[in-house]
Structure formats: C-alpha cells, structure tokens
C-alpha cells in the first residue's frame, strides 16, 4: 500500500513540476478532490447547503424523443469560418478544449464543405459503382443497410488542420481554433471491398474516383489498395445515422487518410486505371515543397498530439496541482507513447494513456503537473506504433519550408504566464 504523501514528495518525472502519471490513478480521489477546484471550467457554487435549490422543490422536465445537452453548456460551439460570399463553403472547427475522452459529439464534429450541406432524401439517393468493373451496379440506401456492417472508432482530420502554426507569428486562438479540424467517432458502414467484389473489378482498375452529391460534386481519387483494405461506406456515426453535415445518407470513410478524401453524400464510385486528377487533389490538397515541386497524394495523416487543457486563451487559477489533458492520433496506426514537457522541451515525462488505445483513433493522454506559478511552456509529443515521432516545429519547417498548407503536425507549445494566461507560443 502506498502511504498518502504530500505534494512535495511526489515522484517527479520531468522538470518544472511534471509528476508521475500514477498520481491520478492511485491517489486520484483524494488529490483530485482538492485539485478539482482548480479545474479551468469550475463554477462557483452559489447555492450551498442548507439552502434547497429550486430544482429539488418541483418535478423536473418530461422525457423527450431526442435529447439535448444542458442549456448551461450551450456556449460550447463549433468555430464557423465561411468563405467570402458564401454561407456553406468553408469549415467549422471542433472546440477540442471543451471536450474530454475520445468521442467527438456528432453535433460538434468539424465540418468542411465546398458548397454547403445538401438536403438529401435517402429514398431518392443511390450509389453508382461503375468504370473498370464487370457489372456496373446501383445501390439504394435500403440495400446498403442490408450488407455486413463493421463499426470502428476512428479519427477524421482535415489535412489543413493546424496550418496556422506555420505562419510567422503564432495565432492567438483556442486549441480548437488552431487544431479543431480533427474529430473522432464510432463509424459504422459497409466494407467497400464487398461492393467492389460484387461489381467485379477488372485487373487494370487500380484507382477509383469517389464523387459526392453536393452542389460542388466534390470528388477525389482513391487507390484501389486502400479501397480493398479498410474503406467503408459509412451509414452511421456514433450509433445513429450520419448527420447531414457528415454526409447523410452515406459517406466514404478511409481510416487515417486526409479528411477531404472521405467524400460525403457519396453518389458515385468510378473504377479507373489512373487518378482522375480532380481540382481538389491537384490544385488544393497537394503539398508544395521549398524547391517549388509539389507532392500529390500525401494521404495518411501524420502522428500528432495537442494538449487541450490547459490550452490557448484559457487561464490558470493559481499555483497548484493540475491535470494536463490532451489528444493524440496517427494515420499510421496506434499511438504507442505520448510524452509531456513543462519546460519547453528540455525534459520529458511519459503521459498516461486512457484505454483502449485504438488504431487510427484519438487517444486521451493525461499527466499530473504541479505548477509553481512561474512562466512555463507546455508541450506534448506523440510516437506511433510505426515509430513515427511528432517533430518540433523548427524541424518540420526545416524539412517542408513555410509555404505548405497541409499536413502540419508539429509539436504545439502553450506558454503559461506567471499571471496564468495560456497562449500559443513558438518554442
């Protein structure tokens, strides 16, 4: 048995107050009880006992057919940013600094649309599978729902996520404002391989074109190997049918691949010998390098992590014990390890990972930190099972230059000022 010990004698694992991840596991109840008051979102209790709160003096609200969150949480919103002159093109970002665990509520899943959210009647919607196949086929939504389904918890990330951090000055925004183009859901759908086999892919069919039924006809080319591996036509998100803004009634889901390829409102799959070279995969989601050459088809999302609490625009509530909490993910598989630094990367300690640690899913990491009130720089660094290590910002920019727009995945540094303000810093 471990004796109850004072904060000063807790096991330190890295500089500037980082404590062993066991702290919250073994002594959590007692210490968190004391530390809980310092949680950044804590509210002061106005109605302390023995006063009887109003909600105990009358019956509450009735049951409802479809639930809503507490009205007090209505401030937790996606950050919407539309392109000029449009209401439906652009994106909205998940407020990751306000969320916990690994599942993103469907209502807060990030959005990226190219011509708004279509209102699709599922009874009128079909998916055409054609091109280099023996049998061109049409699938109704009712037909698709009768196919074998698989469910997997997996992240989806826009490859433009975090891109603001390759600018000259660190954007002063929330964690969601900078990194909120990532979400994680339980996706349920039909393995695409089953449908391709039914249609009979010809040997020369090495790619496919996926096309949406939105007003942009958003389309991307996908390698056949990925389609045959783990691609699904997703019908459900977090247990219910897809939300309209996530592709109702059916979307392509390509685990670990950049978000734009996961075509929503899927209407057509054309098997081709070569990529179609659509606007989005050539002029947009390609990676311009310092030498002026550009890379096409940089599909997997790189290993990445970000501390969500404490994070940008938040304020610490005085020295004391805090739990650092964040998310990590990799398009190459499982997260093997997350390390946290409180001294700007001079020393690192291993964070606790909440299980289960799933491939191509968000994982929640946690680390106890005793902040002594001095200016500090918090960082997290993820390592995946393939051995990919999340790079420092300077290393990433040295490799890729500063003109690239996509696949920014460097370490995020949060500066904590003596007064408690948390800001985005380059360190």
């Amino acid at each position, binding site marked *: 048995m471990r004796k109850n010990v004072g904060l000063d004698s807790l096991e330190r694992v890295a500089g500037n107050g980082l404590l062993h991840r066991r702290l919250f596991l073994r002594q959590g109840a007692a210490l968190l009880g004391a530390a809980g008051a310092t949680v950044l979102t804590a509210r002061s209790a106005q109605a302390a006992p023995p006063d009887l709160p109003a909600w105990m003096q009358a019956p509450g609200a009735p049951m409802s057919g479809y639930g809503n969150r507490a009205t007090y949480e209505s401030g937790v919103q996606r950050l919407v940013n539309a392109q000029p002159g449009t209401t439906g093109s652009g994106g909205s970002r998940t407020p990751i600094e306000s969320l916990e665990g690994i599942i993103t509520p469907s209502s807060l899943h990030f959005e990226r649309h190219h011509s708004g959210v279509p209102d699709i009647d599922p009874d009128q919607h079909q998916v055409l599978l054609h091109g280099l196949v023996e049998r061109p086929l049409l699938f109704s939504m009712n037909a698709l729902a009768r196919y074998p389904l698989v469910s997997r918890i997996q992240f989806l990330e826009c490859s433009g996520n975090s891109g603001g951090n390759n600018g000259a000055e660190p954007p002063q925004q929330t964690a969601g404002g900078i990194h909120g183009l990532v979400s994680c859901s339980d996706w349920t759908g039909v393995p695409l391989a089953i449908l391709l086999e*039914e249609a009979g892919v010809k040997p020369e069919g090495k790619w496919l074109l996926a096309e949406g039924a939105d007003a942009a006809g958003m389309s991307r080319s996908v390698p056949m*190997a990925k389609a045959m591996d783990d691609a699904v036509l997703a019908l459900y998100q977090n247990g219910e049918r897809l939300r309209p803004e996530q592709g109702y009634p059916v979307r392509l889901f390509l685990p670990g691949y950049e978000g734009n390829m996961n075509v929503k409102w899927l209407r057509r799959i054309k098997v081709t010998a*070569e990529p179609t070279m659509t606007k989005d995969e*050539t002029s947009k989601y390609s990676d311009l390098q310092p030498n*002026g050459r550009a890379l096409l088809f940089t599909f997997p999302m790189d290993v990445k992590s970000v501390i969500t609490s404490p994070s940008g625009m938040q304020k610490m509530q005085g020295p004391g014990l805090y739990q650092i909490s964040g998310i990590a993910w990799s398009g190459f*598989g499982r997260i093997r390890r997350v390390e946290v630094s409180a001294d700007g990367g001079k020393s690192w300690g291993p964070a606790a990972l909440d299980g289960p640690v799933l491939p191509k899913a968000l994982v929640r990491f946690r680390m106890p930190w005793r902040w002594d009130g001095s200016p500090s720089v918090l960082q997290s660094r993820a390592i995946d*099972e393939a051995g*990919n290590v999340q790079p420092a910002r300077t290393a990433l920019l040295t490799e890729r230059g500063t003109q690239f727009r996509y696949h920014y995945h460097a370490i995020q540094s949060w500066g904590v000022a003596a007064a408690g303000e948390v800001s985005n810093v380059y360190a």
Partner: protein
Amino acid sequence: MRKVSLVAMVACGSAWLCTVSGQEGPGLGVPATAEQVAGWDVSIGPDGAGLPPGSGTAAAGKTVYEAKCVACHGVDGAGRPNDQLVGGQGTLRDAAPIRTIGSYWPYATTLFDYMRRAMPYVTPHSLTADETYALTAYLLALNGVIEQSTVLNATTLPQVVMPNRGNFDSAYREPRRR
C-alpha cells in the same frame, strides 16, 4: 520520414484477403444501364475520355466570364473575393507562393471537369458544353498557356500541356502484398 507499421501492413494484407475472398454480401446491387452510367459519369481525367461534343474560344469565354464569374474571381481572373485564377508564374519557391491555374495546376482537363460540376458557385450544372470549353480557353489564354485563337474541344483540350505539369510527384506507394 513517414514510416509504415509492419504490423499494420500484415494486418492490411490479411484483411484484404479475408474481405475480398471471404466476406459475402447479399448481392443487392441493381445492374446500371449504359444510359444511366452515361448520365451520371461527368468526371474527366487527364486523357480527356468522356469530354462532350462542343467547342469554345477565349473570346467567347470572356463574355461568359464577365457575366457569370467576375463577381467572385475578379476582372481577368485577378481574384477576390475568391480564388485568383491568373498569374503567379515563378512564385512557387517564394515564401508566399501564388498558386493559380497558370502557375500551379498540372492538368487542363481538370478545369473542364471542375467548372462543369461545380461552377458557377450558385448555379452549378448550368453551363453548356460550349460555355465550359470557352471558359477553359479564356482562362488558359489569360495565363498564356494557349493562344487567343485556339479552339478547345474534346480533341484539343487533353493536348494542352500545363506549364507546371512537370513539377508534381506522387507520394503514394502501392503497399506490398504478402
């Protein structure tokens, strides 16, 4: 730079084998007729297969552009409030590169494919084939890629070589099968 897990590759290999050869669906796909496929299939790849009959020149395209495109893309494709379409050649190594049709896009067929499916923003699928060829010619001529007099059609459009075509590499590698 980006490593692929050996574990993941082995798992992919076995999943491929088991899904393709093993899992069976209820076979509910309904045969699509050639007519249906022709009606749905609007995508145009670099080889130009599927380009419709019709033709257009830069002069005709300028008229269409000024009626339907200029509000979002500016006079002569200068951009604002939305994407700049013209210029930027020679800037791709700069700290602030300007990516336009002329400076960046690798394939001319992409222009036809994209405009036909998605433009004008508020009235997609409203352009005729002639208008789409004409707009393509106008934007390519503004960028100095083709002559003002060039007639674009299903034969000539795929023959246009974009100036930045040689500066793209594919990062995708086929996984090794077991």
